[in-house]
């Protein structure tokens, strides 16, 4: 019993000592906690997840129909495309690009209309940019493509609309053909051969015109159908077959006054043609009913998330908590035994009855308690969303409320949250201890702690998703406590779900592993001083 209480007293010696020591070093706390926190906060406030605006000049070939119309299509494409005019001078535009006055040069093809309309091909825009940042270059490619697609679409729409205007004349033409056919029939019935011949000629002109116009429109519509993967539309098929029948019947028509002219047969064929023209008219009306915008861009996307909605700053909040806590715990751990060695106190421990395990337990307890308090404060700041009214003062800085706290959602269970924070601190302190026992000086210890922080920023999935890393780099990720804790806290806080038991257990197991390694190393150092 006496032994047990002594054991407790010995372990507790470090607990209170570490806490006192930390509290006596407000500057250390400030640089370790407040510094990184403010940096991340500033990032959270200042980071705009918006694409930069691309200043764009369009180069249009002289004499091209686009020369007059590009402004109509390109000047109001979207916020990220700043239309800086059109020119026919490619060299000049490229020079401007090189001087950094503009970000993008879009070169239009010579004759977009005929390419699209008559050759049924896409007109190709060429984009020039002047980016060295590969991410930015990707962005330019991506947004350039989106905007140029939009230009393509607008031109296509114009063509389609023109086609539709034509289709109005198609229905008129069909009506006119029907009227001429009917008039011819009347004339034949009256026996007025001369008039019948005139009407028949007029009818055949109409029919020819009708055929030409209709074919163009149908071809365009077929192209749209093919691009969109639909099969030949019912209405275009109906128009096509209707026209064919009319043409077949028309071939049977004789010319009034010819030798073997059969007036009765002529009348019945004309009646049939008129009926077919009536059908054709309604088919063409179907075409007219389709909105050109729908024809050209039939899909519109609307995203719906099955996860709760999150703002960007809120999304990063759990990761920030994790990074700060890990950095804090690793640094404290990394400094602790180095400091003892530098102060010479390790010599005292070695002569005293305290065991390595007692040293570790006492120190761990101190750091876990301190880390826990910091975690609580940090979380309170993140999760609360109190709006402090600033009344008059606010006008100076252009806002009338100051939000205390970030209003980060906490969807999950606080018990899970605490378990993750505990496991994170446990593993991080352990990692720090291992560092502490393999380095020689405190500046080395701090450097190692910074390396851990740096790798965490890059590899723990905070800013770059793990999926973007190669598998062997991901091994680095999974050797960092932060990687586990970020995923766990995101699940708990943002999704409001129970954490993955496997991840939590692995994180905790990692802590146990670090503890054992630290215990072995400290045991060796406390047994005797290496020469």
């Amino acid at each position: 019993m006496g032994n047990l209480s002594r054991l407790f007293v010995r372990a507790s010696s470090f607990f209170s000592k570490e806490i006192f020591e930390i509290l006596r070093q407000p500057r250390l706390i400030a640089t370790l906690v407040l510094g990184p926190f403010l940096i991340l906060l500033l990032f959270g406030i200042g980071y705009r997840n918006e694409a930069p605006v691309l200043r764009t000049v369009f180069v249009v070939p002289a004499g091209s129909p686009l020369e007059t119309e590009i402004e109509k299509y390109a000047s109001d494409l979207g916020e990220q495309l700043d239309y800086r005019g059109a020119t026919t001078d490619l060299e000049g535009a490229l020079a401007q690009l090189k001087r950094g006055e503009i970000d993008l040069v879009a070169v239009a093809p010579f004759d977009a209309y005929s390419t699209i309309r008559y050759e049924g091909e896409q007109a190709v825009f060429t984009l020039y940019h002047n980016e060295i940042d590969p991410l930015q270059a990707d962005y330019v490619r991506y947004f350039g493509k989106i905007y140029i697609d939009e230009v393509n679409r607008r031109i296509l729409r114009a063509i389609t609309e023109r086609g539709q205007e034509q289709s109005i004349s198609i229905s008129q033409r069909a009506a006119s053909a029907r009227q001429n056919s009917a008039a011819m029939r009347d004339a034949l019935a009256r026996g007025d051969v001369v008039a019948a011949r005139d009407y028949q000629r007029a009818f055949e002109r109409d029919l020819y015109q009708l055929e030409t116009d209709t074919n163009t429109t149908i071809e365009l519509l077929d192209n749209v159908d093919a691009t969109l993967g639909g099969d030949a539309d019912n209405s275009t098929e109906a128009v096509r077959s209707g026209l064919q029948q009319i043409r077949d019947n028309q071939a049977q028509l004789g010319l009034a006054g010819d030798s073997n002219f059969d007036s009765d047969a002529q009348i019945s064929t004309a009646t049939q043609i008129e009926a077919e023209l009536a059908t054709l008219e309604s088919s063409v009306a179907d075409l007219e009913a389709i909105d050109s915008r729908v024809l050209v861009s039939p899909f519109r996307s609307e995203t719906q998330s099955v996860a709760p909605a999150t703002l960007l700053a809120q999304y990063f909040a759990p990761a920030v908590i994790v990074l700060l806590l890990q950095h804090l715990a690793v640094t404290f751990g990394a400094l602790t035994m180095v400091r003892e060695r530098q102060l010479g106190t390790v010599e005292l421990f070695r002569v005293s009855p305290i065991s390595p395990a007692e040293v570790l337990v006492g120190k761990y307890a101190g750091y876990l308690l301190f880390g826990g308090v910091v975690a609580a404060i940090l979380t309170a700041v993140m999760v609360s969303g109190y709006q402090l009214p600033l009344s008059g003062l606010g006008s100076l800085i252009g806002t009338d409320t100051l939000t205390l706290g970030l209003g980060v959602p906490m969807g999950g269970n606080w018990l899970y949250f605490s378990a993750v924070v505990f496991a994170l601190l446990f593993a991080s302190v352990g990692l720090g201890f291992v560092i502490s026992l393999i380095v020689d000086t405190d500046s080395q210890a701090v450097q190692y702690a910074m390396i851990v922080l740096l790798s965490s920023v890059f590899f723990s999935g905070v800013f770059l998703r793990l999926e973007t890393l190669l598998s062997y780099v991901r091994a680095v990720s999974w050797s960092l406590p932060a990687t586990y804790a970020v995923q766990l806290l995101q699940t708990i806080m943002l999704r409001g779900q129970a954490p993955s038991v496997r991840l939590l257990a692995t994180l905790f197991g990692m802590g146990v592993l670090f503890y054992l390694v630290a215990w072995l190393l400290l045991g060796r150092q406390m047994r005797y001083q290496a020469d």
Partner: protein
Amino acid sequence: MATERSDVRSSSAEIDIHAAKLTKQFGDQYAVKDVSFDIPRGKIFGFIGPSGSGKTTAVRLLTGIYPPTAGTARVLGVEPMNFTQHLREEIGYMPQLFALYPDLTVWENLNFVASLYGMNFVTRRKRLRELLEFVELDKDRRKLARSISGGMQRRLTLAATLAHDPRLLFLDEPTAGIDPVLRRKFWDHFKTLQDSGRTLFVTTQYVGEAAYCDYVGVMTRGQLVLVETPQGLRKRAYGGELVDIVFKDSVSERRHLQPLQQFDFVQKQLPRAVQRTGRHNARIVVDDAGAALPALMKWFGDQEIEIENIEEHVPPFDDVFVEIVSKAEAEMDAAEANHG
């Protein structure tokens, strides 16, 4: 007095510290070489030697901080590298350098060390307060250790070492940087500890402190030159006790000095047993000044040689120490020259 010296070796009392050919090498350099001694329970053993002579290394070997390169040590019957937890509670170690926490207060530091030794939270308060009063830091107990003076840090370290009331104490220069009054108080306390049966191993550079010790070991260049009682130390330094004579007339070699060689108590084997030290002064080395003085006074009277003064000269330990160390080093150099 030579009998006292053999006492150290052949004492039937329990030996708390035993060293046999204890050796510690750092690279090529011997910090401690072939050091052997036994320290009985309840004695104060002073370890004196110039800076770099290996005192601290010896303490570290005896407390298990360093493993020895060769030789053995037994402390409380156990090799230091195999100390049990229980045994460590019986040992107190005061390192030479301040090894406490600058960011903790005097009181917190003391409490910390008391906890290291598992001292009960409740009962230790009174003892720690007493210790602080003893080292005269009671009023400063709320100050941070970084903001107290070097001497105060020494005192705090001593208090921390005494906290768990160890049975065997290793004190590495406990009085360095302490004022003479407090130093006296410390040694009085060490004597009190000794009286209650504690054993103390104390290193020091203040040779005068040798007087407080039961035995003094003199170290130089990693070697233990001798182990002596403080009185024996003087004899060893000069080959005997010293008698100073002041003659009325100027000293005559033939009339005053040569005749002195006849006495048995004069250490004639020494090259300079009788030596003129001034116009009227002479110094002779005798085996026992107490016996020699009356005999000399009688002889001077018989010979009608007028003397102004005759007395035993007790050289300060500093001189004794310098004498011993320089002799030992000269011998080491000579031995080395012979080998080389």
